[in-house]
């Protein structure tokens, strides 16, 4: 054994993420942390606690709500923000639709990509100079090349061919007025790291991450949840004519807009079981579950160029 201490991989990742959040707080004048109620952003809140307690967070939390989010996740989002005593800002894609800045191609179109418009409107409304997000490089090919501090121009655009060099842990968060920095503290985490961290820190999650029975249909090979209740009680994702509704034991690996997030079959009803399942799965996190990424090989990159986080 060495007399000098070595951090475990989770301790190292946590320490790096804390360092990144503090750099945002130290370098930017008006940052915001994007919190959706999903598992990655739940980890981010624990990191923020470790970074800034006993003080308050030096930024508010913000969620861009598509209006088509799982009720369990929205309720969890509000509960968690209240427990932490931190300010939560919610801006909604439906308001952008009312303003006419978001126009859906048809009523059923996924609102996921339209979050970019609402996000940019919120950035302008509050004058945020940095958004802290929970994106990870292992999620998607375009993200593997994104910096931890990613510069966006006045239109929120990411220019992958012209990124700022990022060396050591010397982050450059400088921007001019109107420009914006996106900072990703858990860039170097994998799905497995996230689940191991949730297990170690005993983090509470929305119930839909655990195995539960819900009505679904099988559409083009994917499990599609149907008759999903919104916060208002209204049902969304109604089945199409002729589709057979079946009850399946499923859980969500990733949670987003209802119209583009599909669950996987699973009987894992505890974090421990999910860690084991994650270690043995043969399908990537977004592969089976994100209907929006499958449109083309470049769809994530395209969305990011348009201001997506």
């Amino acid at each position: 054994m060495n007399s000098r201490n070595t951090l475990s991989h989770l301790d190292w990742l946590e320490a790096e993420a804390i360092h990144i959040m503090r750099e945002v707080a130290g370098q930017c004048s008006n940052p915001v942390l994007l919190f959706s109620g999903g598992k990655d952003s739940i980890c981010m809140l624990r990191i923020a606690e470790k970074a800034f307690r006993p003080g308050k967070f030096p930024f508010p939390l913000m969620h861009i709500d598509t209006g088509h989010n799982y009720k369990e996740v929205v309720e969890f989002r509000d509960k968690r923000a209240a427990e932490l005593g931190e300010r939560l800002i919610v801006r909604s894609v439906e308001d952008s639709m009312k303003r006419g800045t978001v126009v859906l191609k048809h009523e059923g179109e996924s609102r996921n990509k339209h979050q970019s418009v609402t996000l940019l409107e919120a950035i302008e409304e509050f004058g945020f100079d940095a958004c802290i997000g929970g994106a990870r490089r292992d999620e998607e090919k375009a993200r593997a090349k994104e910096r931890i501090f990613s510069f966006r121009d006045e239109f929120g655009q990411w220019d992958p061919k012209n990124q700022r060099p990022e060396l050591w842990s010397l982050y450059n968060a400088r921007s001019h007025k109107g420009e914006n920095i996106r900072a990703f503290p858990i860039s170097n985490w994998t799905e497995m790291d996230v689940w191991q961290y949730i297990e170690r820190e005993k983090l509470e999650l929305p119930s839909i991450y655990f195995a539960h029975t819900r009505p679904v249909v099988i559409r083009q090979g994917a499990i599609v949840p149907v008759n999903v209740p919104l916060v208002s009680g209204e049902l969304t994702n109604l089945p199409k004519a002729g589709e057979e509704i079946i009850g399946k034991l499923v859980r969500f690996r990733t949670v987003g807009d209802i119209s583009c997030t599909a669950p996987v079959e699973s009987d894992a009803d505890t974090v421990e079981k999910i860690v084991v399942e994650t270690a043995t799965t043969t399908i990537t996190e977004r592969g089976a579950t994100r209907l929006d990424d499958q449109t083309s090989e470049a769809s994530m990159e395209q969305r990011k160029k348009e201001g997506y986080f």
Partner: protein
Amino acid sequence: MSAHQVEDHGLLRFLTCGSVDDGKSTLIGRLLFDTKTILADTLNAIEKTSQKRGLGAVDLSLLTDGLQAEREQGITIDVAYRYFSTGTRKYIIADAPGHEQYTRNMVTAASTANLAIILIDARKGVLTQTRRHSKLASLVGIPHLVVAINKMDLVDYSQDTYEKIKADYLEFAAKVGITDIRFIPLSALNGDMIVDRGDSLNWYDGPTLMEILEAAPAAHTEHDEPFRFPVQYVCRPQDSANPDLHDYRGFMGRVESGSIKVGDAVTVLPNGLESTIKAVQIGGVDIGEAFTEQSVTILLADEIDCSRGDMIVKTAEAPAAVKEIRATVCWLSESPLDRARTYLIRHTTRDSKAKLTGIDHRLDVNTLEHVAADKLAMNDIAEVTFKLAQPLFVDPYLENRGTGAFIVIDESNNNTVGAGMIL
């Protein structure tokens, strides 16, 4: 697997140097494949793309090309990061493209790596490119080099070929002063000596590549280092509902090197005021001591002025405070370094205006010779001197990466235009 704890050897960051022709993408693909990191749907997708392009076999390099322009042009533009885990250790691979803007990308990728794998095509031996990669890796202070002689299957797994390349490399390494080197024969294509030994290299009795990676020392574990704590942020809760927090002043930062515990005598730079450590915390919880790479909050026994950009050090081992630095600089920007202009240097959490006062020489990365220079263009590497407006608290880069590295920022557009290593 979570029922009983396996030993955690932490995290190793390494860099792969070489071009597609050396089999670099195949090597990375092999590491990900043999550690079961590539999942069925990803493999499916690249199989489909390989077929669409009329390729006979699955092209593992498709795994590492993330951007649309890269796929369209069949080139790699930027550093990509890949992850895999063996159960006992997590790995982050920095994959730097081999051709265009090589120096800039390699310096970026190397800046966070503790080990570099230098790939050599066994048919071609030590090339100019090999020497360039090796020199850059040693310049950026990567402590461990692994020279992987790949494509052994194409030279009939010949031990003579391997020994000859090894001798050539050692001769070059001695000239440029690279000392910690390991050699390994490989066939990334067939998977020989990556994770499994295979049957074709029985004359080689050293460790497999994976065994080398598993045993490589983690960063900061090989030498005692002085305590360096650049302050990132100061926490003053001033919570009126909680009088206990009224006087709370927490200095937040990451331990760049060394260790600290309650009771240690410290000095705050630049004001030079001395105090002792009252508490070391994470998230408001006392942990008593902290060591390298931990992000913590430090409380001092005395109320002294300290803010972002200051550095807390042990009183007995303070770094040099300098207003002029000599450094090896890699220029990263399309606009050349301009002597007439003032730049911003960011070192730890501290910024200072800076002006170039001299270029000692430039390194020709192909011949590895020092040449005279009066300006620096993109991808140039040179020894230079900067004059500073504010003092910086520095250690030589080769002794301490955290306090020896800096970046140069162009304030007109806020771009990062240079990377510096203090001599």
